[in-house]
């Protein structure tokens, strides 16, 4: 059994905070799976179970004014960035109370208040956006950082390379966080990349890059703080390759024909939650009753969130055409009233 690589555990309060954060993500997603099986939520559902240390560690390094860009496997990123579990679940229910009023769903969570820019279902689609958010900060002279999460599958896309080049060329304040869980759906890294050392690829663009044990939340946090500080103080783009693993299937539709059960089991021995818990116990920091209380707290949060989502209201169909264009005083001169159903105001008719 592997333990945390770091020498010692931080103070009990902080360790417990990290543990709680990871547990919140874990329980939220276990609940999502349940709700999915009960057909309460639909669409694609990609869970992050096993990878929680990555989001938990990186988010610790951010300030409220920073920006986060993520992929379709982003429930955990959204939650730990500060979007409420209720708003996330309500979104999956398609309810008006959801963080995107039911228009985004599991793969497209957004939240302006916490500068959470998605929720992008196009592999690598978020990388150029992160570059642009960082460019805006640079041009406006703001000391903000943009963090971009993406899977190792994105590394094969052209947008990855275009984004590395632009970020380095213009020395932009962006932190790229590659969540290397070894598989892009069923394609193992070695079957898709000629060079499988991803940090090395980033380094090829003159970006400071290093690989981190993504199952060790303390190691992730430490690396993220170091990288974010460097980015914030004008050190240009930085890159972390976070070596992690997803314990579950790619999505709810995946029969997982591409990997051995034994491989999964082996990685589960390095469950980031168990690792931190064990380290805390070894340091005498987590008496059983505290662990029980922590679990109960998280359970309560999630069940309140489910109640919130469950009691939400479906976004009305009469609102379908909203947010295609901004509401403007002059709504264009398309023939809404003349047209009736067909060719009227841009936008679909229910």
């Amino acid at each position, binding site marked *: 059994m592997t333990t945390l690589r770091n020498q010692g555990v931080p103070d009990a309060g902080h360790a417990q905070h990290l543990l709680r954060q990871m547990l919140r993500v874990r329980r939220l997603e276990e609940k999502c799976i349940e709700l999915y099986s009960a057909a309460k939520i639909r669409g694609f559902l990609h869970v992050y179970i096993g990878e929680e240390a990555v989001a938990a560690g990186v988010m610790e390094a951010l300030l409220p004014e920073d920006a986060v860009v993520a992929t379709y496997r982003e429930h955990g990123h959204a939650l730990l960035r500060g979007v409420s579990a209720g708003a996330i679940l309500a979104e999956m229910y398609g309810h008006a109370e959801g963080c995107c009023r039911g228009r985004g769903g599991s793969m*497209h969570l957004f939240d302006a208040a916490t500068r959470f820019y998605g929720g992008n279902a196009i592999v690598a689609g978020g990388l150029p*956006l992160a570059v642009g958010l960082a*460019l805006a900060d640079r041009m406006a002279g703001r000391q903000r950082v943009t963090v971009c999460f993406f899977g190792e599958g994105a590394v094969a896309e052209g*947008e990855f390379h*275009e984004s590395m080049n632009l970020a380095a060329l213009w020395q932009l304040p962006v932190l790229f966080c590659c969540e290397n869980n070894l598989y892009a759906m069923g394609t193992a890294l070695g079957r898709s990349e000629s060079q499988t050392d991803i940090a090395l690829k980033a380094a090829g663009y003159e970006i400071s890059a290093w690989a981190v044990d993504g199952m060790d939340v303390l190691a992730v946090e430490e690396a993220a703080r170091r990288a974010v500080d460097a980015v914030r103080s004008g050190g240009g783009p930085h890159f972390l390759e976070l070596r992690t693993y997803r314990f579950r299937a790619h999505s709810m539709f995946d029969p997982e024909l591409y990997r051995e059960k034994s491989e999964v089991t082996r990685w589960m021995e390095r469950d980031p939650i168990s690792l931190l818990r064990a380290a805390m116990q070894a340091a005498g920091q987590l008496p059983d009753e505290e662990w029980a209380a922590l679990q109960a707290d998280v359970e309560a949060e999630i069940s309140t969130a489910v109640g919130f989502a469950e009691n939400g209201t479906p976004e009305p169909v009469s609102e379908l055409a909203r*947010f295609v264009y*901004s509401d403007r005083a002059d709504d264009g001169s398309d023939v809404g009233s003349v047209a009736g159903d*067909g*060719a009227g105001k841009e936008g*679909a008719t229910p």
Partner: protein
Amino acid sequence: MKTTYREAMRAALRDAMQRDERVFLMGEDVGRYGGSFAVSLGLLEEFGPERIRDTPLSESGFVGAGIGAALGGMRPVVEIMTVNFSLLALDQIINNAATLLHMSGGQFNVPIVIRMTTGAGRQLGAQHSHSLEGWYAHIPGLRILAPATLADARGMLWTALQDPDPVLIFEHGSLYNMAGELDDDAGAVDIDKATVLRRADSKADGSADAVTIITYGGTLPMVLDAADQLAGEGIGADVIDLRTLRPLDTHTLLDSVARTHRAVVVDEGWRSGSISAEIAARISELAFFDLDAPVERVCSAEVPVPYAKHLEQAALPSVERVMAAARRAVGAGG
């Protein structure tokens, strides 16, 4: 003031950069080279490399970065050399720029302006000559502009920059050298309405026949020319410049068709699945009983635009083809 379409575009850029420090221009060769169509010539010296930002050959990367910068509070103007190259950035334009407002439930606007050239007629072969603005007009969430006049070349950019949503501006390559008079104080223009640039004399003058000719962008000068010649044959023409392909100003089209009872749509795109198909469909849906003849369309031949001059010209709409369509519409034989 005497000016050209190119100079009018440049004046619009300069004006926007002066008025709003969030505005910057980004694209391949917009800076040191002066713009591949010389639109931004001299602006680098005036505004510096931060705001006249040369990019590598990375259409998806820099268009996406423009979208990100717009999300981050800037007002980027992104230039793509030609519409053909914009296909490398389709992911960013369609999956991000056009969708983020809606998917975020109204939280994230993308106030970006993307400019690009479009159109044929300069013997550049298929990969530099297509007119794909009609495709973009298919996409909800985008606003599609096609300035065809000096006033619009000068005025549309600023209006587009005020729009909280993504706006694509298509500049037909054959228009850049178009010269003419522009008011000294020309400025921002409305981008919601099509304009009727010429009205058919009504039946009062004895000419029994009238037709509405609808077009936009690079084919407008040709249509005006055709309208002049048709007048000599006793056929009056309303000439409508759409100016905005999405959202379409259907009102102006219907008003005109209600008077002329005939319509010809001229579009340099291909006929199948085109913006002209949409316009013809709207007219038949909404003005069927006003029509005295089927809606005519003059489009490009359904071939990749060829290089050889005679083949290219044969593929494109022409004054003759516009006139023939108008004659058919009024029953005067084609």
